[in-house]
């Protein structure tokens, strides 16, 4: 059920990497390992103390690193983080990284649900770490990388495929008739803006794509986010009728809208509350409508 095409090459490469490791590097790694062991000991003790304490959050975090011994086999690490009101999962992860294990790796930046970096699989569903209050979750909090995407390291997944799909729908405004005067804006009705408004909120986090079973099975399926992007432009009246026709052709392709089986999981996980299924369905109807004209 992976979205990725087999990448046999990868293994070879990482082996090559290991071979070139110098003896000095080996020693260094060894030392680091020893210290890691000592640290683990400390951590374990801290954990014991913490576990006894009411006011801690127990995190179970997915760990994997293709290069580091002991992390090549995925495992779950436990962290006990002191809880404070308003603490998000991202806060807890940052605390664990800064205080227990600096090699804990995840993407994050804005801390306010706008950059889309930290879509994670938290207690069994796709959410933004920064937008999820720890107090809303059952303990322990299980944090994993997004399913159906290749894991690079720990909680970091390879987003390339997602970006490719996003960019496959010509995700940019195109129109043939701009106003003659360079300082004159195009007009758009409020209703039309309202219609596309939700679709413009996408932050490219990939949560929806990761939750969709169809996308998991069919690697070429454009997926909910890209289709939503197509909706955003197809429904924008400023682009004009010809362009809309062109947009419909894109989303009608073999791996376009027809693949969607209205599972709704995309809509459910979208941190920006974009009604993805609704948009995809609207595109299907548009496509049928425009094609019926020629029947």
């Amino acid at each position, binding site marked *: 059920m992976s979205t990725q095409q087999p990448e046999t090459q990868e293994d070879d490469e990482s082996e090559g*990497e290991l071979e070139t490791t110098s003896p000095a*590097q080996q020693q*260094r790694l060894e030392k*680091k390992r020893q*210290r890691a062991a000592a640290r683990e000991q400390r951590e374990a003790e801290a954990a014991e103390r913490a576990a006894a304490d009411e006011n801690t959050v127990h995190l179970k975090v997915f760990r994997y690193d*293709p*290069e*580091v011994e002991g992390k090549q086999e995925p495992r779950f690490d436990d962290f006990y983080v002191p809880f*404070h*009101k*308003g603490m*998000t999962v991202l*806060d807890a992860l940052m605390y664990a990284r*800064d*205080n227990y*294990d*600096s*090699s804990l*790796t995840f*993407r994050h*930046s*804005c*801390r*306010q*649900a*706008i*950059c*889309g970096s930290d879509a994670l699989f938290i207690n069994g569903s796709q959410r933004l770490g*920064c937008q999820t*209050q720890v*107090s809303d979750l059952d303990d322990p909090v299980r944090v994993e990388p997004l399913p159906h995407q290749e894991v*690079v*390291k*720990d909680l*970091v997944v390879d987003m390339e495929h997602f*970006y490719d799909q996003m*960019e496959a729908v*010509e*995700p*940019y*405004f*195109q129109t043939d008739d701009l106003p003659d005067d*360079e*300082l*004159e*804006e195009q*007009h*758009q*009705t*409020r209703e039309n*803006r309202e219609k*596309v*408004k939700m679709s*413009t*909120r996408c*932050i*490219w986090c990939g949560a929806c794509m990761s939750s969709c079973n169809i996308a998991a099975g069919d690697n070429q399926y454009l997926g909910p986010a890209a289709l939503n992007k197509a909706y955003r432009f197809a429904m*924008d009246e*400023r*682009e004009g009728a010809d362009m809309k026709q062109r947009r419909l052709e894109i989303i009608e392709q073999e791996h376009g809208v027809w693949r969607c089986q209205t599972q709704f999981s995309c809509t459910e996980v979208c941190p920006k509350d974009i009604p993805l299924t609704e948009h995809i369905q609207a595109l299907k109807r548009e496509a049928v409508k425009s094609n019926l004209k020629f029947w």
Partner: protein
Amino acid sequence: MYEYDVIVVGAGGAGLRAAIAAQEAGAEVAIVTKLHPVRSHTGAAEGGINAALREGDDWTDHAYDTMKGSDYLGDAPAVEALCKESPEEVIQLEHWGMAFSRDEDGRVSQRPFGGLSFPRTTYAGAETGHHLLHTLYEQVVKRGIEVFDEWHVLDVAVTDDDEPEERSCHGVVAYELATGDVEAFTARDGVILATGGLGQVYDHTTNAVANTGDGVAMAYRAGVPIEDMEMIQFHPTTLPSTGVLISEGVRGEGGILYNANSERLMFEHGYANNDGELASRDVVSRAELTEINEGRGIEDEYVHLDMRHLGEERILDRLENILHLAEDFEGVDGLEEPMPVKPGQHYAMGGIETNEFGETCVEGLYAIGECACASVHGANRLGGNALPELTVFGKRAGRHAAGEEMGEPKITTGKTGDYEKGTVDSPVELGEPGSGAVADGGSAAETADEVVERTLERQRDRIERLLEKDDGVQHASIRADVQKSMTRNVNVFREAGALKEALRDIREARERYSDVYVEDPSRTYNTDLIHTIETRNLLDVAETITVGALARDEFRGAHWRKEAQERRDDVWLKHTMLSWNDGSPELWYKPVVLEGEEKTYEPKVRSY
């Protein structure tokens, strides 16, 4: 080794706009960015973009408002460029499909904003920055501009001539996160730095975790002077646990600030008897902090912003977004309880010294956006003036770097014009520990390739050293200590004692940093390494802010000094400049350019 005409570092609004402009001017462009473009912090901007678009408004009024807002520390040629070109940039964005909010007649909407004499802030809901960023990125995709995302730029490749003004820049060296490779990017025509804000210098900020002032620090160490760094804007209403911004709109609608004794602090403690909660940002920030410092804060940390009395209907209608923010990031229901707020670092007015085309004094090196200082914001930025800065100066720098003829700049850069030496009473030595300013001594006639190659080698060594070092200090504790010290000592209130304290803390942090090591040995996505490198940049930046703040003993714009609580135009109508000077920073001043093409802006009392 990669080679392009123009290399843009950073893919926020500024970087993306520059890349588009350079490509349109015929250059072969690549963007190198440590985040994927849509992850840039431009996306977080809420309020809007100022542009004099409508009948009844004029760019000259915008320029006047901006100069006044800057407390006369802005440079008129840059301010005028901003205000004159902002309208066409906004229309350009509209033509690129940006989803602006609309009026009944289908034109883009504008709203009033603090410090503006006309409602000239165009906006797209409460997510203007998000739409701006995505619209620009879409255009980059459309044009097929090469983007190297998740490549962290480590250094700029600059020649090592004695005087910074004689140096030239030939590229950058970057680290690829996914693989751990360090590679060089040669720029035939120019390198444009657009690395954004530096909020991570503080532990409480509206800025992203990635806003670590890398560009400022890199340019600074390459010899480019850094300007007005003490000018840091603090926003009065940010959530205590994360620093997420609660828009001014809440107070605009009638939200009230209470202290721990449930007193309406703005009135009952006389901070602003006329405007109350709606006094300007710096006034409200100072009021809140006074309450907290005097023991009337809640949990000694914050005050309450209450909007319950506005009624559910009105809140849902106009401030729905605020409910989500308070709920998601603070776990507070704004309909049921007051929201905790406190001042947080928001914006850096200062940065890399440039002229009105984004050029620095180092040939071929440009800076734009929040990391640059042209200067359009002077001592205080008006809301809605940063986003137009991104597009206007992005476009200008992009074209200039691509070789377009743009005329003579009116703003001088580097120590060329009439500058004034400065001194600062620092309790500790500044700059690189143990550097003693030994310059490499101009091995002058280097070729461009040699410069790039040398920079590459140095950075490879540096990465190796960090990864190979087995013991020492980890960056996280250094970073945390500096952040805490900055928030405690170089915050809204500034006084000599505390500022010196901060300098001592920074010094100590620098010394600890010389023993820093990276625990994670992996070459795959090593964020431990990247954060360690960023922490170094934070140290350099923190020091420049503090030195500037210590030197400037007056109250201007965002900068308040206990020892001198008024504006002193006779001595301080000048920019604070700091040069790295190969490791032992040097303070100097250059005059403000108040003379514009349109008129000369005579300093007046700034009152609203």
